[in-house]
């Protein structure tokens, strides 16, 4: 522990006893976080596997289901999430530079965008409930057919599969967003108290990695769920 006297003097609390240096501690945290993201990739991977299988098997139903989603809201939400990723990156940058007020500002902004995303998601979910698009005994689905178009041959039973996949995937994603908002709240409180400095901002950086990962999942979900068959 005597390897870094400066660290022990000013930030003794941040260097945990079992690490030799701050570099070792930071590297450990980074590796740990990336390994956690690996588990997240595999976690969502299971659902992508289901998606891949059922999309190929029941393409008509997936196309019809995709058209029933609000592409406009989905697109706006994608933008909102991308902007929140930018604010998160800026929050990490502010932490790197030790700008506490900017850090707090960007954390708040990230939370606002994150909450906006969840709000829009709630509006979309609500619409699905109203339209009886939620799988279960009350499920019903009517295709919207524009003039001159032929409706897709769909099976009402199989139609529920699209919405099962849709709710499972977006629901899990939304759950991750909620957890992310919790992390942001924690970071905001800590950074308002001045817990982070250019020497020690690992928690901000780790939460950033998590937030960006959740963003990446959505980057895939948006075209895979909303844009299956919009060209016809």
């Amino acid at each position, binding site marked *: 522990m005597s390897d870094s006297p400066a660290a022990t003097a000013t930030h003794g609390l941040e260097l945990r006893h079992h690490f030799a240096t701050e570099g070792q501690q930071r590297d*450990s945290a980074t590796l740990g976080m990336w390994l956690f993201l690996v588990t997240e990739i595999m976690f969502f991977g299971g*659902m992508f596997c289901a998606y891949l299988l059922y999309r190929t*098997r029941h393409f008509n139903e997936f196309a019809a289901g995709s058209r029933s989603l609000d592409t406009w809201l989905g697109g706006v939400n994608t933008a909102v999430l991308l902007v929140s990723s930018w604010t998160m990156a800026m929050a990490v940058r502010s932490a790197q530079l030790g700008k506490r007020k900017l850090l707090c500002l960007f954390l708040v902004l990230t939370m606002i965008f994150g909450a906006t995303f969840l709000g829009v998601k709630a509006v979309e979910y609500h619409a699905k409930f109203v339209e009886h698009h939620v799988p279960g005994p009350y499920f019903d689905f009517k295709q919207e057919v524009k003039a001159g178009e032929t409706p897709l041959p769909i099976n009402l039973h199989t139609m529920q599969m699209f919405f099962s996949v849709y709710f499972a995937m977006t629901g899990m994603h939304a759950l991750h967003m909620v957890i992310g908002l919790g992390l942001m709240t924690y970071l905001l409180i800590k950074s308002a108290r001045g817990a982070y400095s250019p020497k020690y901002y690992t928690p901000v950086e780790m939460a950033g990695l998590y937030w960006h990962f959740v963003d990446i999942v959505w980057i895939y979900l948006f075209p895979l769920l909303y844009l299956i068959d919009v060209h016809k």
Partner: protein
Amino acid sequence: MATAALPQERKNYLNAEHGLRSWLLTTDHKRIAVLYMISITVFFFVGALYALLIRLELLTPAGDLMQADSYNRVFTAHGVVMVFFFLIPVVPAVLGNFLVPIMVGAKDLAFPRINLLSWYLYMIGGLLVIHVVLTGGIDTGWTFYPPFSTQFSNSRVIEAGLAAFIAGFSSIFTGLNFIVTIHRMRAPGLTWTRLPLFIWAQYATSVIMILGTPVVAITLVLVILERALHLGIFDPKLGGDPLLFQHLFWFYSHPAVYIMILPSMGVISELISAFSRKRIFGYKFVALSSIAIAVIGFLVWAHHMFVAGMSVYAALIFSFLTFFVGVPSAIKVFNWTATMYKGSITFETPMLYAFGFLGLFTIGGLTGLFLATLGVDVHVTDTYFVVAHFHYVMVGGVVMGYLGGIHFWWPKITGRMYPEFWGKVAALVGFIGFNLTFFPQFILGYLGMPRRYYQYPPEFQVLNILSTAGATILGVGYLMPLVYLLWSLRYGEVASDNPWNAAGLEWKTTSPPPTFNFDETPVVDFEVYNYEDLKEIPVER
């Protein structure tokens, strides 16, 4: 031997702090290992109790001891408790937790608080399962196959699935901690080729935990969602494919058997080396075979599904790939055997367990080839042949390795020696009881007795009686260590720092080790298993 007073004066992790609070809030990996040891032992005997009920019911062909529904709940409880709460965590969470930081010369695991969280998650999952079992039980089998689990079972699938899910995160965090620790916290001079094979095995295990566990986690979530909210991902009526569940489930659950067996293989490497007083034959091959098992283990999962209605082409691919996982396992067995050549072998209890492991794992591994072979698998899958096979690997392999390791490191963990005579007796009794229990099941399986039957045609009875008789002996073989190890905590001979005169960093610190493992960070300027540098006769302290 030293006087009993000496270790009392020395500060160690056990006497550093006192009181329940100091245990429940500890972040010391050694104390967490002890917490795991206690809780896992409890779960083991809970699972064993259910095994006993199963064997009692199967004494007679008729279903006389239990109703069909009770039997289904009993074997499910046995499976869930043993797989998720004993076999998967046992060696990593107890021996791994205790030894990984010490063996790499670190003060603790990289994330001590996450390590404690792992234990709490394990306990929450475990208590949830106990709660489920006591308040109605679950009757799906530990495999949770839909559509039975999602639509037809009238038992508490959601809570049980949740329990396995939570335990899964415990396992993920343990694996994550080990990988980071092994990468980042090795002592100066401790290069990868100087790592003990136990560490290599733990590393390979952790890789599987990280990659596989989340897949089964999401699969269980989907089952729960289908049951609770009608999201019918696996529902055939909605165009779902129940085989998707099986693919996702076995993507984890086949590698999970390597989560169970690899750490025990690591233990065996340490034991054979220590009691032959030799460097392991073919160190690099044994080390890399662990990694190979972890990677190839992910390519073979669908050999559980050859009769499930899978594509013939896929069955071919998976059968072919499955044989490749046999190669690294064979490499290990051959190298362990070769290590004894020109050694200086003694036969203390841990070595007897290592012999037991070799004997049983050989049979377990070879019968695995039967199941990889398509034509034979069609006949024996879902019969007692499979049951016998995986008990040879899981119980014969994992438990033998664990018990061997517990005896070997008992002096390090507790500072006391176990009674050698009783240790040897228990190892022998366990070995005999095990074979008597499970060998007849191979024959039963080929005769065609299906798994999960609580009543069966009378011609199967003789073999079932043999099996139940063997289980009684096996039970004694497991109860004995419990008794004499507890006894030794108080009355055992006080252990020296290195009672086996073995190589390895863990023997260079005191018994039991101090809270931060080493008084000074060790510098490793010697090779692993450097028995040539150690004196032949144990030095009295």
